[in-house]
């Protein structure tokens, strides 16, 4: 071989051997090595970007990550988490195994189930994160369960959501306290309530909430759907909806696009009762001039569905160390306290606050409260999410019955 070719081969091999360790997946249990590998990386965090408050919090997180760990976090704003799932799938289809575009995804529910099924996630890593212990999973099983599926360390918890109803007290004084009540209320106040169009996740959650109450929390909901029993178990739900729809907004001929659209409709004066996944949504909306100050929030008396949302790392991310460092920071007390603050975002913490040490506990003391927000004790009654297969089955059945009018 000519001297120049030998030199190039030697340089190439040297560079390759230097590059290889960086490309190999870092071992989550060796945390110092992870932090070292993370420094200087740029993590592309794909997260829903429809709420400017969430975006503002993520921007704060980026600043902290840069100054504390030297990791550059870029927020890729999604309008639908499904598109991130589709992207990772497309990359796998094209044979892209180590240079994916996405490093971290804000995810839960059926999106997580789909990615696990297709082996699109890196893990397990969550339980090795130093801050994960602060969530005390043995006492709070919801941080390791995603819609009845065990996370098995493939996603790290981040925040909590719970279905919260809100109403305009200037238009209606006695909002319904249960699903059955809701039907009576809708008959007395036609055209003033609606739920988001399926397959929006907030709308699907309304279906699950109604089904849980109407079927008296049937055990079958927490196991995979059995085709043969589906019709029988869901019969009360369809009877209920058949009766409810004519009294809904637009007589049930059209449904709002998403949860936030319910808020916009209330702002326009079209609805006087709505619901959201975020307990602080109504208070935040009043602060942002979207809703009148007469709005009040509450939870149904028998409890409402709640779930935890997570972050997960795709299998082909080239910045897994940085992503893990970010996931760990998100679980830190100061990040969780900042997130829960009403002036920043208001999303509830997944940490077991009562078990933190005094300094960290103080971060969560909030003097701020808002007349439109939920009273402090209202969130104790949380219903667990059914198995994810119920979500898809209910969505398909709803589209079959009401999808064309």
């Amino acid at each position: 071989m000519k001297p120049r070719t030998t030199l190039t081969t030697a340089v190439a091999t040297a560079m390759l051997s230097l590059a290889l360790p960086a490309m190999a997946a870092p071992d989550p249990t060796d945390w110092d090595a992870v932090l070292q590998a993370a420094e200087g990386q740029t993590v592309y965090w794909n997260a829903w970007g429809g709420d400017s408050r969430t975006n503002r919090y993520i921007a704060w997180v980026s600043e902290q990550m840069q100054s504390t760990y030297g990791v550059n976090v870029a927020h890729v704003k999604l309008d639908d988490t499904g598109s991130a799932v589709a992207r990772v799938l497309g990359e796998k289809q094209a044979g892209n195994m180590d240079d994916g575009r996405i490093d971290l995804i804000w995810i839960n529910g059926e999106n997580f189930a789909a990615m696990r099924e297709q082996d699109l996630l890196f893990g397990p890593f969550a339980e090795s994160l130093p801050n994960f212990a602060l969530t005390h999973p043995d006492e709070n099983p919801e941080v390791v369960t995603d819609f009845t599926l065990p996370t098995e360390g493939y996603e790290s918890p981040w925040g909590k959501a719970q279905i919260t109803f809100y109403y305009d007290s200037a238009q209606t004084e006695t909002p319904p306290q249960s699903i059955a009540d809701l039907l009576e209320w809708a008959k007395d106040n036609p055209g003033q309530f609606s739920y988001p169009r399926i397959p929006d996740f907030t709308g699907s959650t309304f279906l699950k909430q109604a089904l849980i109450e109407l079927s008296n929390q049937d055990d079958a909901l927490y196991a995979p759907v059995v085709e043969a029993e589906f019709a029988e178990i869901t019969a009360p739900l369809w009877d209920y909806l058949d009766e409810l729809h004519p009294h809904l907004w637009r007589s049930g001929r059209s449904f709002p696009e998403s949860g936030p659209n319910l808020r916009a409709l209330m702002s326009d004066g079209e609805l006087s009762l709505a619901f959201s996944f975020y307990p602080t949504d109504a208070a935040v909306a009043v602060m942002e001039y979207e809703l009148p100050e007469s709005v009040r929030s509450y939870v149904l008396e028998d409890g409402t569905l709640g779930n935890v949302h997570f972050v997960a790392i795709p299998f082909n991310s080239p910045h897994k160390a940085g992503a893990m460092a970010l996931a760990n920071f998100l679980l830190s007390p100061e990040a969780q306290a900042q997130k829960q603050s009403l002036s920043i975002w208001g999303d509830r913490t997944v940490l077991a606050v009562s078990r933190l040490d005094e300094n960290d506990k103080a971060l969560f003391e909030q003097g701020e409260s808002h007349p439109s927000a939920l009273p402090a004790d209202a969130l104790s009654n949380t219903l667990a999410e059914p198995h994810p297969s119920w979500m898809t089955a209910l969505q398909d059945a709803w589209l079959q019955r009401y999808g064309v009018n």
Partner: protein
Amino acid sequence: MVLLPAFGYLPVLGGNTFHLEAWQTLWAHAGLQRSVLLSYFSGLITALVALFIVVLFLAASQGTLLDRAIRRMVSPLLAIPHAAVAFGLAFLIAPSGLLVRWASPGLTGWERPPDLLIVNDPLGLALMAGLILKEVPFLLLMSLAALPQLRPEQRVTVARSLGYAPSIAWLKCVFPALYPLIRLPVYAVIAYATSVVDMALILGPTLPPTLSVSVLTWFNDPDLNRRFMASAGAVLQFGVTLAALLTWWLGEQGVKRLCQRWLANGSRASGATAIAFGGRALLLSVTLLAISALVGLVLFSVAGFWRFPDALPGTFTLDHWLRILPSVAKPLINTLSVGLAATLIAAVLVVATLEHAARYQLPAWRAQWLLYLPLIVPQVAFLFGLVVAAESVAIRPQQALVVAGHLLFVVPYLYLSLSEAYRRLDPRWFQVALSLGVPPWRAFWQVRLPLLLAPLLTACAVSLAVSIGQYLPTLLLGGGRISTITTEAVAMASGGNRRLVAVLALLQTLLPFIGFSLALMIPRLVWAKRRQMRGAA
């Protein structure tokens, strides 16, 4: 890349054989037939009504002050992105919208918004209205660009000397010659209207939605097995667009046969006043509607809480602008860099092609239809396949790929806008320059290009506007990492805070607006002392 999964071949999801199962699932999907019919008819009706309005206005316009004013008002409307028009219109005509608020409770007595299904109506009328608002300026500008070569004034003068009313004269003498020149833009309108996604999401029917919206939802469905059905749907969408184009073509032939008698029957004035009045009134209402939609957006961007049925917001605040502006710096830079890069490359390509054609006296480029292909094939149908194809040849999503994607859509518009001006430019200027001993490239730089400054800048402004408004290509080819004003606006739209969406929609409109203003002002400044050189458009 899209055809293969449609027939069952997608190894990463376990589909290793060809089969028709995806088509069976598609056909069994509730509401599919309605979706297909919605897309098909909304496309055809939009094109028909938009063409009708434009033709009527051109027939009615006499070069009076009013007509010139209307014409000048219409061109900026081209700059407003589709999504912004859709938002504005949605708020304008909704039962709790601007029009009702201005009329209530004084005229209507309503204290609560009426429960009427106007936006998202099942027949797609709101969607068609939004599309017509955008397509009328486009067709008008294309027609105005094509008219001069037909010498319409001379034709109309001859007809008037035979006793025809001016508008009838225009319809009988000019329009039949004009139509073949604007046929391709009309086809582009039909193709866009049958496969539009962003407008259909905001204004279109929901249960069931139009076919393109359904296909997009299936592509993004967490149930990854829906991919097969989505690919089949994308192929079906392409088929629907082709069917609509074919129907239009058949319609053309039919109209040609039926109108031959009318052309020669000698009626000189029947319907002239109706046309004169209707033409102006229709275009004026379209323009006013679009402007009111914009006004609504502006009001919302500075609104505090706005109770129904107040005509104006209770309080005004700059909070929304202050909140958005810091986060919008990077997207703005991205939008401009991608847009300017795509426009520049497209301009070089198009000018080179046209210059070559002009120098060698080539006839109008036969392969023009090839240029139009990206405009006619629905974006939803081929973009996903393009992403997978790019990944397979290890071209990672990046800015360059986004610029290349935008080029696909920008070049046809640039070509359309510039080719007329090139053709109309007197070739003798170039010949005189050559005869003075100057090499051809210098004659090009110093004679032809300066003469074409105004049309060139306008064409660049149009292509910049097109690039700014692109959503799916930026999102998919950039891997989600290149955020532009449009991707930000659509992401924010899913959050439902109408005030912030209004701010982003206005920002989205401002950029092409600046482009158009520059295109108008620069020739005026450069040729301040040479009036004949300005406005060669």
